[in-house]
């Protein structure tokens, strides 16, 4: 009888011991455990991503030669356009540098673009994150900005050996400084819990009272260099309505984000060429 009773409380004792052990285990051990388990799983995701690429390759191989020739022509047209744009960009950059030198402006942060495939998307009510196929092997830093052709994607929140986790701007935990296009005054952007149906949304706060947005003329919310993570001018979303915020001093409103954020295949990580040194660069 006594043995039966002991058998019965064994799971509860084990649970209690585990919870106590978990409570006293140092954070370093937990981080090590998490990293170890994550790195064990990473090859499966990287492998899946490569298999996906192979599948696309074979799908493309099934195209006829006529289709490939047509696609080649399109690429050639785009290439000549981009070559022209590249020359123009170089001229404009030289001009900007010349004017900056005349005005004695401080130097801007420069970034290196590291293009990475999305291997996994985890978007739900509790978290909004994606996993990309590059990590420490490509010097992806923690906190780096992630962008795509439609603008800001998010920020790197975890870096593994071969993969990195990115928090999307749709996540309620994501917050950044931004400004409306043509207006240098900073506002605060934050993600929202997503309803799940329709386009993703965010929220903007601390907008000055004189800013007016309407559905006919929505305002473009873009990134600012404040904070140092994002280069200025990257699209965040559109704001078509602003109303007085909680304090009554500033305005707040919803930000309509790019619907493509939910089906990303490729993103670019912005790696600062001159990382901020907290000891020397911060006054």
């Amino acid at each position, binding site marked *: 009888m006594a043995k*039966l009773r002991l*058998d*019965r409380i*064994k*799971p*509860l004792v*084990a*649970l209690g011991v*585990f*919870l106590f052990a*978990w409570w006293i285990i140092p954070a370093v051990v*937990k981080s090590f*455990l*998490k990293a*170890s*388990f*994550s790195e*064990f*799983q990473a090859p*499966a995701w990287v492998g*899946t991503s490569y298999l996906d690429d192979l599948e696309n390759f074979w799908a493309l191989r099934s195209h006829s030669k006529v289709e490939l020739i047509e696609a080649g022509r399109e690429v050639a047209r785009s290439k000549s356009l981009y070559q022209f744009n590249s020359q123009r960009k170089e001229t404009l950059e030289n001009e900007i540098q010349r004017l900056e030198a005349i005005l004695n402006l401080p130097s801007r942060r420069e970034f290196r673009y590291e293009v990475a495939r999305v291997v*996994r*998307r*985890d*978007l*739900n*009510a*509790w*978290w909004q*994150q994606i996993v990309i196929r590059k990590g420490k092997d490509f010097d992806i830093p923690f906190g780096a900005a992630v962008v795509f052709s439609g603008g800001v994607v998010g920020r790197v929140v*975890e870096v593994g050996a071969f993969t990195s*986790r990115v928090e999307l701007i749709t996540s*309620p935990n994501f917050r950044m400084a931004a400004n409306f296009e043509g207006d240098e005054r900073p506002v605060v952007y934050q993600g*929202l*819990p*997503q*309803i*799940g*149906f329709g386009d993703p949304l965010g929220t903007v706060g601390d907008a000055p009272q004189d800013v007016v947005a309407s559905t006919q003329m929505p305002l473009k919310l873009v990134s600012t260099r404040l904070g140092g993570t994002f280069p200025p001018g990257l699209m965040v979303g559109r704001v078509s309505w602003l109303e007085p915020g909680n304090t009554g001093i500033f305005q707040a409103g919803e930000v309509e984000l790019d619907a493509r954020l*939910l*089906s990303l295949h490729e993103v670019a990580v912005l790696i600062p060429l001159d990382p901020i040194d907290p000891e020397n660069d911060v006054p």
Partner: protein
Amino acid sequence: MFLDPRAILLFGANALLLYLTMLVNSALVGWSIYLLMLGPMLVFPVLYLRHQSYFICTVFSGLWVDAALPSSFGLFTAGFLFAGAFIFQMRIRFRAESNYHLIFLAHGVNFFCILLVTIAMGFAYITSLGFWLQVFVTSLASHLALLIVAPWFFNFERMLFALCRLEPEPEDLPIL
């Protein structure tokens, strides 16, 4: 034997289930549907294994899930052990040879996991209607999918036992 070989098989099956679920989730992102199917992972270890093997299998499965999902590390490990301790105490009441009770248990544990992650991760948005709507859709989709996935998963685990010529019957059941 220190560790029942079936515990290793069950841990492997759990890792496979998680991997497949996340593959499906990744593909379903455009439809705003997310599946959380952790319930079936706990059922076989808690009903089939001795306490020591069950504990090791559950801790490793929990840590595996915790490492894969962006929730706070240790949340699912503790949650699995909590639910496991509860079921382990009354496992004599469940018939493991057919899927009926197992599916019922899988739904119960899955609902517990959804509740756990909602409390742990969504406490700040508890007043948001959008948050609750998405939690409801996720729960509904997960439990509907579980109606198909759970029987398949349990039969798959039984098949693994048969393939590896391991004992297909639950062990260490208390004597009535």
